[in-house]
């Protein structure tokens, strides 16, 4: 396992959802939900610290894999995050993705934090900074309206170029 204290938060996104903490937890950990708001990916996650975590593409290939660090339903989920596809992206050192869920008045606050253990170039951080707002906007739409908001996008060109330059 990794030492989480070596990973520093570089990107955070906060969104408030008219829902319950339990429902938000379920949407983060169940493929019935992730397939709708997370660009068709299904999730496989062992419900315990140290358990395996996989995001899988519809054709069966693994997109992201990692290990569970925190499993504390419905409050905190964190996983290590190693991109496995596209192939070039395997050069990226793993990061840590954490979700914190809290009641905030009559809504639920969901905080996503992406933490890194190295001096990540801004161009590489732009990937998460582009993707997370779309993913989490879609999650909010799904929970509030029953329909996701599946925005079409690709990784930023600057990110792809920066990954090519990685050793």
């Amino acid at each position, binding site marked *: 396992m990794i030492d989480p204290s070596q990973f520093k938060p570089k990107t955070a996104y906060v*969104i408030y*959802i008219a829902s319950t903490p339990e429902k938000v937890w379920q949407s983060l950990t169940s493929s019935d939900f992730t397939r709708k708001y997370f660009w068709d990916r299904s999730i496989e996650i062992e419900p315990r610290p140290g358990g395996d975590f996989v995001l899988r593409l519809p054709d069966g290939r693994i997109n992201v894999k990692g290990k569970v660090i925190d499993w504390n339903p419905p409050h905190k989920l964190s996983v290590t995050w190693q991109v496995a596809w596209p192939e070039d992206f395997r050069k990226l050192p793993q990061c840590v993705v954490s979700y914190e869920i809290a009641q*905030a008045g*009559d809504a639920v606050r969901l905080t996503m934090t992406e933490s890194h253990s190295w001096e990540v170039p801004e161009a590489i951080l732009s990937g998460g900074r582009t993707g997370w707002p*779309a993913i989490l*906007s879609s999650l*909010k739409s799904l929970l509030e309206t029953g329909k*996701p908001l599946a925005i*079409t996008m690709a990784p930023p060109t600057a990110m792809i170029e920066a990954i090519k330059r990685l050793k």
Partner: protein
Amino acid sequence: MSKPKFVYVTYIRTTPEKLWAALTDPQTIKRYWFNITAECAFTPGSPWHLKFEDGRTADSGQILESDPPKRLMIRWRNEFKPELKAEGYSRCTMEIEMADYYPDFGGKAAKLTITHELEGEGTRFIEAVSGGWPKVLSNLKSLLETGDVAFKTKP
């Protein structure tokens, strides 16, 4: 060292025109902005004020750019917290773009990017708006997509 800045992006199932109207119509603003009222013509050079229900001024400034339904820039200073007011003016840019959906979902979506940057030095004002914007914009997204806000009362 770059100046402190807050950037927030949200995608909303609506049209740029409806989103622009929600950002500039005082009655709509009041619904998603916790009873704050905007007083402004939203044309370049117009004075701009946000007011609390009791009439006190929360923030004030001026419209620097207004290009409906794409781009609005406000020169913005806090007026009700001395430690924030002391940091002076900021610039808040609101940009609206069209976003593509997966074809099988059809319809339209709008991408809203808020960039809020201090003109001078300081960290408290940007810290304060970093906490506030996600609440206000989450409420705005709910209102446009569901007809109701996410927070019935201010958290």
